[in-house]
């Protein structure tokens, strides 16, 4: 264990999402939800979410809530309120389904009406037709190399596992004080009302210990996400992040060194008034991508364009082959064990359904 978590662990698990391939289907979100957050107190929790960018995200305007580090100094953050999270609503199922009013009453949220939700501004995006644009951004705990949450906890309840850098919480020590939530600049920690502890993505560590990839990864029908250990040179994650440097962390300026990386999106070029593509004029403004992924976006986009061009003209490209992902299981080797072939043990009070996915 690495008590304050301010140094790299021996090994680091990492994920790469290709934003050119993510189609916003939410299969990752639902795979996670059904596996980990079905209990009381977790109704509003979505450890993995996919939001449309440009957009305000989940929780609403999370990028303005502070946290993280500036020049290694912890930055104050704030905790979102329920309305900013949204989700976990109660619906009038009984009234619609069992009261004979099915033709006169429509399904709706009971009680306080929602103002936001986990995927509220889906497909809105930005820009003017015909140059409007959007893309999807899957988000989960970044299992940062410098996790602000771990440092912030006055209880020493949080730590980074030495063997894979997963950020975990010892619930027997957690008191639900939520300093972790304030300090997390990505706002990917949730307070559980029922148990009065904070909770976040555990990167499916019980699966990893059986060489099974996280459920969001295995669940992706678009072959849009890779998983592996960052320093495993045979892993696509290593190739995309370290070798080709086309996979970038979200908001590197937050100073926590995330270990979830993204291939930036390349949409078609802008259309001019004559309805022709204007090459060199990206529809997604590069400045916008830089505001998300930092200054390394430009060289990453150049590399991607160069390698795409190379394969178009008949050449071979390891990068393109990796991104195409011809063989599904190669995307997360050696964590390619089939979870259906494992006899899962359940601990008392543990979560159900670890076998699925």
């Amino acid at each position: 264990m690495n008590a304050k978590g301010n140094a790299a662990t021996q090994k680091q698990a990492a994920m790469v999402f290709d934003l050119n391939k993510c189609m916003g289907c939410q299969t990752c979100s639902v795979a996670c939800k059904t596996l980990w957050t079905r209990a009381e107190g977790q109704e509003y929790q979505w450890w993995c979410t996919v939001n449309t960018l440009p957009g305000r995200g989940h929780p609403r305007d999370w990028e303005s809530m502070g946290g993280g580090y500036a020049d290694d100094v912890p930055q104050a953050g704030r905790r979102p309120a329920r309305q900013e999270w949204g989700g976990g609503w109660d619906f009038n199922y009984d009234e619609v389904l069992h009261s004979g009013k099915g033709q006169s009453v429509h399904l709706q949220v009971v009680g306080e009406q929602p103002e936001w939700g986990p995927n509220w501004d889906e497909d809105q995006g930005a820009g003017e037709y015909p140059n409007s644009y959007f893309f999807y951004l899957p988000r989960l705990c970044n299992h940062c190399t410098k996790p602000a949450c771990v440092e912030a906890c006055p209880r020493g309840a949080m730590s980074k596992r030495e063997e894979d850098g997963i950020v975990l919480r010892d619930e027997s020590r957690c008191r639900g004080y939520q300093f972790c939530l304030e300090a997390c600049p990505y706002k990917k920690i949730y307070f559980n009302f029922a148990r009065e502890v904070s909770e976040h993505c555990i990167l499916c560590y019980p699966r990893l210990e059986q060489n099974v990839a996280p459920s969001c990864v295995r669940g992706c029908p678009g072959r849009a996400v890779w998983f592996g250990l960052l320093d495993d040179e045979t892993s696509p994650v290593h190739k995309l992040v370290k070798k080709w440097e086309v996979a970038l962390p979200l908001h590197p300026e937050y100073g926590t060194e995330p270990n979830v990386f993204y291939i930036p999106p390349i949409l078609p070029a802008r259309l001019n008034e004559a309805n022709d593509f204007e090459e060199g004029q990206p529809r997604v403004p590069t400045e916008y991508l830089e505001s998300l992924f930092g200054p390394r976006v430009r060289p990453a986009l150049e590399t991607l364009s160069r390698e795409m061009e190379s394969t178009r003209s008949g050449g071979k490209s390891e990068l393109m082959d990796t991104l195409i992902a011809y063989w599904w299981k190669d995307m997360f080797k050696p964590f390619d064990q089939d979870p259906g072939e494992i006899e899962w043990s359940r601990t008392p009070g543990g979560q159900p359904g670890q076998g699925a996915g």
Partner: protein
Amino acid sequence: MQAVEPGGVSPYRFLLVAARLGSVRRRSQDVDMIKAQRVEAADSALIDPAGSEWRSAPSTRLSLEPTPLISQPSAYVQAKWETIDYGAIGNVSVQALHNDGGIFFRLQWNDATENDDIRDTDQFTDAAAVLFPVKEDAPLTSMGSPDEPVNAWYWRPDMETPFSVTSEGTSTTIRTIDPNLRGNGAHTGGAWAVVIGRALQSAGDGYVQLTAGEEGKVAFAVWQGGNDERAGLKAVTLEWQPLELEA
């Protein structure tokens, strides 16, 4: 500064320096004998903060200070609360009674906002605690040490019973349920009145044991939930107060 209310005495008085990063404040801190008078009354009468026994019990008004910022155990907390005031409750009036079987502390403090439940993800409750050294010289600011632990009775308005909290230093607290520990609070007229009581003797790892006719030490803490106070963000008596249980 602190005022001594009728019935209270102030045999000790000395100066403490409460230093906070960013601003250095100097305040005097009084140390008062908390006398737990012996009364013939049932536990059920004493656990009621509006009970008649409390009307004539001596009351001591203690000034509270924010826990020193330097003792907050994470850089995040130190950085954020360098510029945010905490320890919002400035003083607490303390009464103590025992009936030879149990000892009861009645704490009263002004608090315009009643934060009695966690209804949203950005809320905390008000809370109060009575703290004892389990060994006589246990350090207060660090909440004890491995060799000299402390024991707190921690009350929250949304909890059925208080927790017994044992601690051997910063960040080491453990909460346990002590069946001999009870609490009862009411928020009326812009003030909390809370009684926390326990059998003088209670078997449990790290629990303080009290005896009629003997002296000990006690300290108090109050959290203002409406000011995001929780954990080490609280108002405390910076010194142990001597405690005397009438024979």
